[in-house]
């Protein structure tokens, strides 16, 4: 069995890679992909805990997370398409009608 801290560290690295992507990338689709990366890292965490605790709750939760991720991507891409139709760009810097 792989030691739990190792897996946790692995998933933390993935998660922070996702955080970096969300904050540093400008293309909305890539930001969305980075968010997927973060959710994925959380799933790794849940499944690793599930194995360490000998309890299937973590796996069930990961299943729900995957379903939610799918729903999120569907809506996110729909919004991206909508904004592209309006402005011909999905660069979130150029979408600056509203101030931060």
């Amino acid at each position, binding site marked *: 069995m792989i030691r739990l801290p190792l897996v946790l560290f692995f998933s933390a690295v993935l998660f922070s890679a996702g955080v970096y*992507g969300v904050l540093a990338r400008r293309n909305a689709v890539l930001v969305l992909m980075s968010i997927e990366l973060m959710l994925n890292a959380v799933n790794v965490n849940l499944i690793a805990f599930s194995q360490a605790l000998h309890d299937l709750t973590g796996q069930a939760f990961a299943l729900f997370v995957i379903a939610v991720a799918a729903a999120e991507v569907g809506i996110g891409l*729909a919004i991206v398409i909508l904004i592209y139709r309006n402005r011909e760009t*999905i660069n979130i810097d150029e979408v600056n009608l509203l101030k931060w």
Partner: protein
Amino acid sequence: MAADWIVFWVCAPISIGSAIAMLLQRNAVHAALFLIVNLFTVAVLYLVLGAPFLFAVQIIVYAGAIMVLFLFVIMLLGVDREERLVERLRGQRTAAILLGLGVVGEVVFAIRAGVGFSTRAPAGFGAANGGGNPQALGRLLFRAYFLPFEVTSILLMVAAVAAMVLARRRERPVASAERRAQEPIEPSEPSEPSEPREEEPVG
């Protein structure tokens, strides 16, 4: 050296490498491909971590559906031209790196502080996985977690309706031609520039 150990040390570096490659890729399609590699390696890790069902689900849902959707949208919008990686807001990248490191640091701290993990249940994973992992997961889902399961179905329905509402072009009357002639072609909307791409067929 156990097999799962080897698999982990093969997959984890590839996974992290592809995640980082995805972040540094200028081309959106290449980034999506690296994310697919990442998702695959993570799926293999699920297998090693005792979750064969999630391994399959991960490939079917993430790699098979979500990422295809991403590629589809990237291609459809033609936004796959190179993205400038120059930051507009100064220091944003630094802030991102710091925040990322912060997350890792927090976890490392948490792990180090809690070395002795409470593995309460002495019974092995085999007991929890009685009758095979998919079967055990199914029992759990349809007994203890059947409310979240149903709630998820509502969530997915909302998402389906929502995506349709958002991505649908402004509807034209589908009915007969004379009605179409009487009505204005665009529902009047003064605050918005007209959409030149309105005439394309919906794919």
